[in-house]
């Protein structure tokens, strides 16, 4: 595998979207795309699989709700039954608010930390910005120069169709872009 990548810089999100779509159709490997804000439809253009984060969220939420229901039942009616207002020990309605809160809490924390984990974001991590202006007004597409057959000048010509403003070759460190 080559460790060289091509950075194509665009001025408009529409250009980036069209270029991404075309590059994927051509069969070149897209390593990543960097944009100043979330560009709708980019995930589809890059051919990414649907996010699995929703499943993490659902499972964490269910764990929170069911786990808390079980815990409340165990504390209030098995280990230490307390008579509240003459109601039965295993009163489901009184367990619902806490179960709901636990579901929201676990679903929220679960999703956020799963996202941080998957994107390898943690405190103290040094940002590697491929191109400083992606944090302002430029859109960058990172293409893998897969093998010797990848011809940079012809790729640049191809990208001209999508109003590419700048192309640059970088050497990727292992695992940096993918």
């Amino acid at each position, binding site marked *: 595998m080559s460790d060289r990548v091509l950075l194509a810089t665009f001025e408009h999100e529409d250009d980036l979207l069209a270029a991404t779509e075309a590059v994927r159709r051509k069969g070149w490997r897209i390593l990543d795309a960097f944009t100043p804000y979330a560009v*709708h439809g980019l995930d589809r253009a890059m051919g990414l699989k*649907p996010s699995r984060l929703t499943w993490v969220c*659902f499972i964490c939420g269910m764990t929170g709700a069911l786990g808390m229901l079980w815990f409340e039942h165990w504390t209030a009616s098995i280990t230490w039954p307390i008579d509240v207002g003459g*109601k039965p020990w295993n009163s489901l*309605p*009184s367990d*619902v*608010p806490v179960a709901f809160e636990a579901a929201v809490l676990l679903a929220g924390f679960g999703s956020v930390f799963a996202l941080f984990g998957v994107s390898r974001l943690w405190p103290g991590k040094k940002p590697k910005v491929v191109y400083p202006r992606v944090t302002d007004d430029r859109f960058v597409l990172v293409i893998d120069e897969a093998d010797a057959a990848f011809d940079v000048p012809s790729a640049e010509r191809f990208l001209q169709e999508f109003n590419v403003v700048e192309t640059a070759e970088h050497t990727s460190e292992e695992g940096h872009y993918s």
Partner: protein
Amino acid sequence: MNSPRFVVPHTLSRKLITATISGAVILGVTTAISPDRAWANLLLLSYFLITLGLGGALFIALTNVCGASWHVAFRRVPEAMTGLLPIAGILLLATLAIRLPQYGWHHHGHGGPGTFWFKELWLSPKFFAIRAVTFVLLWVVLARILVGSSRRQDAHAGKPIHAGVSVLFLGIFAITISLAGVDWIMALEPLWFSTMWGVYQFSGLILATLAAMIIGCICLRRMGPLEGIFTDEHLHDLGKLLIGFSCFWMYIWFSQYMLIWYSNIPEETSYFIPRLHGPWAPIVAGSLVLNWIIPFFVLLPRPSKRSESIMLRACVVVLIGRWVDLYMMIFPPVIGTMPTFGLPEVASMVIPCGLASWLFFRSFARAAPVPAGDPDLVASLHYHA
């Protein structure tokens, strides 16, 4: 730039009118056999209809105030829903007028149990009637102004809509829907009260409105006028609102229930005891399944919110749930200890479908299907959820 007007197919109109008239005949016959049951059905269906119309106006006002642009492509759909208001208003006022002498607690007489001067004044027949007429008139007039300002854009393209009337509408809506719910439905059990009632009415209203709006949009997309205009992105966002308000409805339902269950005071529990013990209980359980459990689990995955057929089914479930929810509010105090379901109830399901659809399509056909003069239309057409 104006696209051609939508023409309601004759066969469709005829079917809808036939359904409405046959429902009306069944209810007419029921009036002779069992007036209580017929009246309960009449109140159910007219309240159902008026809240759908009101919900359309609410959606327009809310989006205007937010300065939203995503909905502009299908804004004529909630606008057409407000076309239900005048007829539903007349129907509702007539329904209330039939029972005005017995309505509320005032037939218990002066100084009866659970009364005090303000309640006696509030539920006196004259004041009750004045309020009902005022609410309906306010809704009809404000909805007309809201829709009118959107229609004027067709002639004067590019003029943004003023949010002033929308702000006024939202304030008036919040107060009137709470009071109307208390007057027309909570007062069926005049000795019972709940401070959650207003927001409970709102939660059912907005949920049914969204469901009806989605069905309207999908039908019009299939019939042609919104083809290529109402996109899957719009459907997706309406689906998110639907699942969100389904949870909101459940949240409010449970909040009302839990507070009453916890404090366990006889004058408060009088609403839930007949409904949760005995023959009505399975129907309450059914309303929770239809309004929350089914929509929640069905609409949770992203693809189902973007699928026309799944959304259509979920919306039908929600609308049936709304009917059952209203049935559980209205029927126990009016018809007594045993639930009934027969031809008259089928009629009160069929009439809202037939009449609402007929009024909706007729109202939709009166203006261009797309607000072409709205400066936000392009943003809405290219909208990504």
